[in-house]
């Protein structure tokens, strides 16, 4: 195939032109692209806030921005990154694009609802951006009452509304995925022939559907309290601020698995393709996704160890937190075992997958630190926790997201990205990341509290290291932006299956046609059966 072919061949990209053909599309692939653009914007917004945070923390005095501004910076950083970037990231882009193809469906079950959920994200995002431009919010992404309801003088209402609306975006995506996986599988596509990415997104969808409504209603209550002064959580009326924390974390702990499960799904695909072996212990890995989704709902109280929650509840939540760690550990071990006697390629997606496993392991293991009651008392609300979650969310999920983007880029666009640049930036990101966040573990144990705009002198050296790392990281993130754009025009033409991958999405042309399949395929192979692909001869792009 050549460049001319890719341009003449009918596919979802050239099926219609003009803004309207995009903004009113019901094609899950186009909606996925819309999501991709949206979340990239929010990643950059969040990243700019992060950069300002890091620059401010270069010096202990806190003399770049005022403390009020600083508080708004980390709040808006957290909100942009969590609610508008990371939660929609993998499911709504890669999931949206590939889930129907992987199970052999022409689209999601409810294409119009799919489009609606993108609009909801945009509307929610518009509220949030409005709040940011109008003056910002300073409650922290956790909105703890009574500060958020009574004492904050910032744009809490607009932001809460934005998150509320985007929450429905998340709910509808989840709903769509659940129905699609149950009702739209091609003949022969049994549950245990589903790619692990589908399992992961299915588990994620379950969390989205069961958890998100609770944070929605919690925000409604915060909203009512601010607007009508009715005081559901107001201690002056005998309300219970810790009840807010329960309701918030009932969603927000499971939400961290919304952020990591799809990433694990991506990693399962990548590890398998680039070692050309079925994932070791496929069933165990599939079930562990479901186990994480379910047990993830039983541990939220580990965010409340020092909140005046009862000691007994703390014990139960700490205990259960360790149960959720086991399925994660099992996944890591199975991925590693997949490499054994494989045929391992060092393509960029695989490098990201290695990065993910390593950094997720460190992030996850430090999760075990903070799940230990006596230890958490010392490090909660310090940079130790900040380091823990950045290791998982930035070191883990974003690595997986980038890995997945590289892996599926040829399918999405029909073009290859430049391999050497990609490898270089993966290395820069890995180094920059560790330099940014490893010092924060030490800072945290030494007692540096989080959300601090100025700090005692003895913490400075570590903060400087962290800022240096963040600069490297920022540059690392710039590279893919540039070369992905470049590849849209100049990248080598990819062909249908450049990696020699199994899976229905690789059986169709790149970029895929509008309705994916002219005829719904009948699945006869087991999942990850590479013998079929290799025998037919791998087409290398």
């Amino acid at each position, binding site marked *: 195939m050549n460049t001319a072919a890719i341009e003449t061949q009918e596919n979802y990209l050239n099926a219609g032109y003009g803004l309207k053909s995009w903004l009113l599309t019901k094609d899950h692939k186009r909606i996925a692209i819309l999501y991709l653009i949206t979340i990239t914007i929010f990643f950059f917004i969040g990243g700019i806030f992060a950069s300002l945070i890091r620059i401010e923390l270069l010096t202990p005095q806190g003399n770049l921005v005022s403390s009020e501004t600083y508080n708004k910076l980390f709040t808006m950083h957290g909100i942009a990154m969590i609610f508008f970037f990371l939660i929609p990231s993998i499911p709504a882009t890669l999931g949206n694009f590939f889930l129907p193809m992987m199970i052999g469906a022409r*689209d999601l079950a409810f294409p119009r609802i799919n489009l609606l959920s993108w609009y909801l994200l945009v509307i929610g995002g518009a509220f949030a951006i409005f709040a940011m431009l109008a003056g910002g919010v300073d409650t922290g992404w956790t909105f703890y009452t009574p500060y958020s309801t009574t004492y904050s003088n910032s744009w809490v209402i607009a932001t809460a509304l934005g998150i509320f609306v985007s929450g429905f975006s998340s709910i509808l995506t989840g709903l769509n995925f*659940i129905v699609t996986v149950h009702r739209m599988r091609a003949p022969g596509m049994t549950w245990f022939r589903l790619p692990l990415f589908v399992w992961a997104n299915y588990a994620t969808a379950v969390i989205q559907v069961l958890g998100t409504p609770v944070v929605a*209603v919690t925000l409604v209550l915060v909203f009512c309290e601010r607007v009508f002064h009715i005081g559901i959580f107001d201690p*002056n*009326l005998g309300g219970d601020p810790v009840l807010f924390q329960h309701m918030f974390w009932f969603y927000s702990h499971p939400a961290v698995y919304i952020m990591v499960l799809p990433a694990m799904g991506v990693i399962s695909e990548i590890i398998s393709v680039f070692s050309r072996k079925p994932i070791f212990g496929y069933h165990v890995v599939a079930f562990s996704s479901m186990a994480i989704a379910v047990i993830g709902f039983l541990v939220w109280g580990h965010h409340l160890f020092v909140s005046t929650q009862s000691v007994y509840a703390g014990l139960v939540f700490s205990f259960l937190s360790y149960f959720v760690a086991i399925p994660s550990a099992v996944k890591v071990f199975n991925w590693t075992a997949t490499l054994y006697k494989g045929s391992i390629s060092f393509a960029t997606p695989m490098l990201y997958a290695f990065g993910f496993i390593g950094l997720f392991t460190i992030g996850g293991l430090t999760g075990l630190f903070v799940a230990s009651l006596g230890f958490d008392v010392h490090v909660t609300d310090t940079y130790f926790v900040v380091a823990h979650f950045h290791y998982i969310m930035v070191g883990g999920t974003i690595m997986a997201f980038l890995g997945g983007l590289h892996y599926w880029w040829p399918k999405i666009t029909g073009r290859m990205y430049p391999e050497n640049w990609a490898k270089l930036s993966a290395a820069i990101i890995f180094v920059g990341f560790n330099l940014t966040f490893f010092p924060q573990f030490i800072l945290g144990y030494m007692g540096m509290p989080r959300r601090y705009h100025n700090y005692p002198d003895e913490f400075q050296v570590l903060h400087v290291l962290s800022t240096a790392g963040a600069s490297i990281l920022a540059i690392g993130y710039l590279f893919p932006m540039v070369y992905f754009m470049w590849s849209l025009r100049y990248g080598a033409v990819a062909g249908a299956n450049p990696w020699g991958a199994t899976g229905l999405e690789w059986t169709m042309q790149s970029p895929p046609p509008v*309705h994916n399949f002219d005829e719904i395929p009948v699945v006869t192979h087991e999942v990850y059966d590479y013998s079929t692909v290799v025998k037919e001869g791998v087409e290398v792009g």
Partner: protein
Amino acid sequence: MAEQAHAPVESLALREQFNTPEQQKESSAFGMWIFLVTEVMFFGGLFLAYTIYRNTYPVVFGMASTSLNAVIGALNTAVLLCSSFTMVLGVRAAQLGRRRALVIFLILTLLLGMVFLGVKAYEWNQKFVEHHIPGAHFHFEGAAEQGPAQLFFSLYFVMTGLHALHMVVGAGILSWLLYHAVRGRFTAEYMTPVDIAGLYWHFVDIIWIFLFPLLYLIDRHMR
């Protein structure tokens, strides 16, 4: 657009992502059930707050609850149950392809829904007159602590308010159904929208079935 080419427009029937009408019907109904699951969790948050506070302030909550008019509440519950009854008869009419009956039952359901909302409005107005609206002018005679009493009424308003909001949305859906029913869009083969709207309407009813005893009844005996 190209995608629409092979979808028969007239009957609203099969969308291109589905293979069979069966698949489409099942997917829609299942989708609605999943949505109702999210609604359970949404109201669940409110029931949680209610349970916690009622447990913490049993006496004041009892007093505040008793100040509501249980007879009106019971009658309104009956109205809502009647509307569920007419709704289910409407769904049945649609299943059998009886257009006139469907239209009539939809109108009846809508009317009963309006009656419910009207009564609710009357009750809220009553609260306003009695200064039982949470906020600066709140005053609940009888309880030494105004705070917990206010918590009760806050929950009362948020719970009944969100329930009423769901009713309003439901009324919107019913009106849409009515419009299409009058134009004869639903047949015995294609009545999925009626079916799933029915699910929604009954669900809103179920929420009220719990709100009624929790808000109006359970401390009645203490007075």
